[in-house]
């Protein structure tokens, strides 16, 4: 016994561990590390650049603007949280729990606001409430006095962001209500607890982790927003980064603001992890049955429909109708061959990026699976943190190393071969796609990972036992089984790239344009009506897959 105890502690001595590390490291471990390094490079370069010290105007910003940035960003975080919870949770509960007319249609209509980027909702609402805007016209037509609501301020900004982002909370809490609530709800009903009390005392606390997970996504998008805040004239961290980069031409200051923003985002992520600390894996409750819907009187059914319609009308129909109205006014001016070419370019970039990002996400998932080192699997998951980091920050983080690399390359080529070239990565499509890839890796990662988890490990293991290696096993066995996950990943990244604005503004090559940037340019140039057509192109392209994906998810 003494000998055994001695030898088993010996097995975990550092020398022995190193031996095993050497034995168990394979190329897949190295590839995984390489991908993570590639993804983390923008953040690392921001961290390194911090040591170079802040720019000249940093002191001025700290004294005069920083409080404004922090105050406004916090205001947005709190007000948006309140509003998206109000819209998202209530509609999710009503749709999941009650039977009412048009319920099926409402299920997917409530997701549609996600198809409209926040800045486009902002443009549309500016048009609705402006002098001579839609409200004004309708009021005059009705013969009423127009009471103008000023929406171009931070309260208005919080409203437009909330109304376009609440579906994240709707989707995550609805999934909980549909699949995990039924047993408890039935128990609660049997105990004679009423509908209201059941919801507030039972469902709300239980759904909290799901709701907050959705909320965190919303808040990341809120902090990421540039277009809406800029148009409404609200100073936030993101607009601050843009100002430092473009107006003040001080990269160092942009870096300092970015670093601060990263700290805020990671605080949010830690908060989310902390609030889930006592929650066991949800599959523990997987024996739950699908929720049973209640049907009530005709009148209350009608009331429920009205309540659910509010966010749909505010978040989708009003902005879309406003844009369609503008589009009819500006159609002849905007819609020409150049615009079609621009759309094709935009779609092309989105498709290319979607394919590359999905490829990287798949690599990351499977390479880390094929690596035998436990820590590699944890590191691989860090690759998806890019989604938390605002686009403007990623853009700055990519500018720095690519610019340095290009300068080095130009120097080296000139020195070695006397070849004179311009910038090779910075300011080209490569840098833009790279940045998209960093930002949207998580968007591709999650659907692929969740379908891959549905394939039992014994399936690829069986293939290996039959003498077939990892790569072949992937193509012959796993790929056919995770096709739907890959397809959803492609679609989701495609939509996100199409909608993306801040990162694209900073990194896009001079001669290349996207629909999002075109809409932004029109809006910034006081041609808000002309922004309608590119906006509608984005919305309709994004809306079709949203409906399709919802069908796919419900089928499962």
């Amino acid at each position, binding site marked *: 016994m003494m000998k*055994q105890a001695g*030898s*088993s*502690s010996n*097995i*975990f001595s550092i020398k*022995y561990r190193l*031996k*095993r590390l050497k*034995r*168990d490291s394979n190329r897949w471990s190295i590839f995984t590390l390489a991908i993570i390094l590639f993804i983390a490079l923008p953040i690392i370069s921001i961290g390194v650049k911090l040591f170079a010290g802040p720019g000249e105007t940093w002191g001025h910003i700290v004294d005069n603007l920083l409080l404004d940035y922090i105050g406004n960003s916090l205001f947005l975080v709190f007000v948006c949280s309140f509003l998206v919870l109000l819209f998202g949770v209530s509609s999710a509960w009503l749709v999941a729990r009650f039977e009412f007319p048009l319920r099926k249609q409402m299920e997917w209509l409530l997701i549609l606001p996600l198809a409209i980027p926040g800045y486009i909702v902002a443009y549309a609402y500016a048009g609705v409430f402006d002098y001579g805007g839609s409200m004004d016209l309708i009021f005059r037509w009705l013969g009423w006095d127009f009471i103008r609501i000023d929406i171009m301020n931070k309260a208005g900004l919080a409203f437009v962001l909330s109304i376009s982002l609440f579906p994240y909370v709707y989707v995550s809490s609805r999934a909980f209500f549909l699949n995990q609530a039924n047993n408890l709800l039935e128990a609660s009903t049997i105990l004679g607890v009423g509908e209201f009390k059941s919801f507030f005392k039972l469902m709300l606390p239980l759904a909290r982790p799901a709701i907050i997970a959705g909320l965190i996504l919303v808040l990341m998008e809120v902090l990421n927003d540039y277009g809406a805040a800029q148009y409404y004239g609200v100073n936030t961290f993101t607009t601050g980064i843009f100002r430092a980069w473009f107006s003040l031409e001080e990269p160092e200051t942009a870096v300092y603001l970015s670093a601060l923003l990263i700290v805020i985002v990671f605080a949010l992520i830690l908060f989310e992890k902390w609030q889930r600390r006592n929650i066991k894996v949800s599959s523990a409750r997987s024996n739950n049955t699908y929720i049973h819907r209640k049907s009530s009187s005709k009148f209350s059914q009608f009331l429920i429909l009205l309540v659910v319609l509010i966010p749909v009308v505010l978040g989708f129909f009003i902005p879309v109708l406003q844009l369609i109205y503008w589009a009819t006014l500006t159609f002849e001016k905007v819609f020409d061959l150049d615009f079609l070419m621009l759309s094709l370019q935009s779609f092309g970039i989105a498709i290319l990026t979607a394919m590359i990002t999905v490829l990287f996400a798949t690599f990351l998932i499977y390479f880390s699976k094929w690596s*035998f080192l436990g820590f590699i699997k944890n590191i691989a998951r860090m690759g998806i943190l890019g989604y938390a980091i605002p686009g403007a920050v990623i853009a700055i983080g990519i500018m720095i190393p690519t610019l340095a690399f290009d300068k080095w390359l130009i120097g080296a080529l000139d020195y070695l071969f006397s070849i004179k070239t311009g910038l090779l990565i910075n300011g080209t499509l490569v840098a833009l796609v790279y940045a998209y890839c960093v930002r949207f890796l998580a968007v591709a990662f999650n659907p692929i990972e969740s379908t891959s988890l549905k394939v*039992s490990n*014994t*399936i690829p*293991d*069986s*293939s*290996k*036992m*039959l*003498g*077939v*290696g990892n790569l072949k096993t992937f193509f*012959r*066995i796993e790929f*056919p*089984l995770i096709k739907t996950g890959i397809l959803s990943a492609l679609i989701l990244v495609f939509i996100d790239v199409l909608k993306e604005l801040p990162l694209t503004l900073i990194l896009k090559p001079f001669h290349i344009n996207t629909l999002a940037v075109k809409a932004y340019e029109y809006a910034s140039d006081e041609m808000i009506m002309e922004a309608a057509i590119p906006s509608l192109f984005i919305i309709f392209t994004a809306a079709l897959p949203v409906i399709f994906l919802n069908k796919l998810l419900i089928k499962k």
Partner: protein
Amino acid sequence: MLNIKSLSKSFDKGKSFALKEVSFKLEKGDICAVVGESGSGKTTLVRLIAGLERPDHGSIELEGTEVSSIKKLVSPEKRKIGLVFQEYALFPHLTLLENVLYGISKQKNKKQRAKEMLELVGLTAMENRYPHQLSGGQQQRVALARALAPNPSLLILDEPFSNLDAMLRMQLRSQVFEIIKKTGVTAIFVTHDTQDALSVADEILILQHGEVIQKDAAANLYIKPNSVYVASLFGNTIQLNKELQSAFECPLNANCCHAIRNESLTINSECEYVTYANVLKKTFLGDNIQLLLKLDNGEQLTVLTKERNIADKIKIGFNSKDVLEFTS
């Protein structure tokens, strides 16, 4: 054929061991059952042999070549081991024939070989069906055919019958091992069911908390278990503690542990050691009746009997030749 030396695996960096210092050998053509409760390390052991897990310590030799040690690991696809999983793990998007063909796609007469294999397991007529169109027992046989097709040097079956109901299980068990014996392949068969192990294996290896408790021929294990644990795995066993020894007035070596199998107890007949008992409770279990007895010295004892007419007071006893003695 298979030689395993002090194999250890921990999933929590040495705090606890799923497998600890396991060593054993297997000769060619042997069928060895690995028996243990859930969590005893059975599945870890076979996954280490297959190369699907990496050992923290120890070595594995297969047909004279080292496939696993602290310095070197041969990847699972190069070990020529066939593995049948508990949940069969058939490829859901391939037909039966394609499933069986999968591992032999580089062989010359692959079609013929695959068809032979399906014939061996009696599923020729279904070669174009997909796994989900099959019953559990049929899926099991396909998994076996698929594993045997590349002619593996070692076949591992991990709890192959645990997802089947009792009737089908017995039927399939004899079918499967007939096939295995026909092919003459060396096989390791993991089970928590000792009936399974006794009925088909030449040798049985008992695992408890990741350590080998005993490895012996099937019959020997039953007759000469080396611990109360092993004895109790193979049938109802009553440990003869001091109180019971005094009740039966049987003086036994105080340095050893003793036990007696339930089936060796006699009721109302003459034996070397006897005592009287009051029947406190009778529970009807179908083939047996469970009796809760209170012995004359106050000790309580639960026994099973096939006897249907049990009086309120009985005489029970056993013979010294049936006493199992353990040194630890």
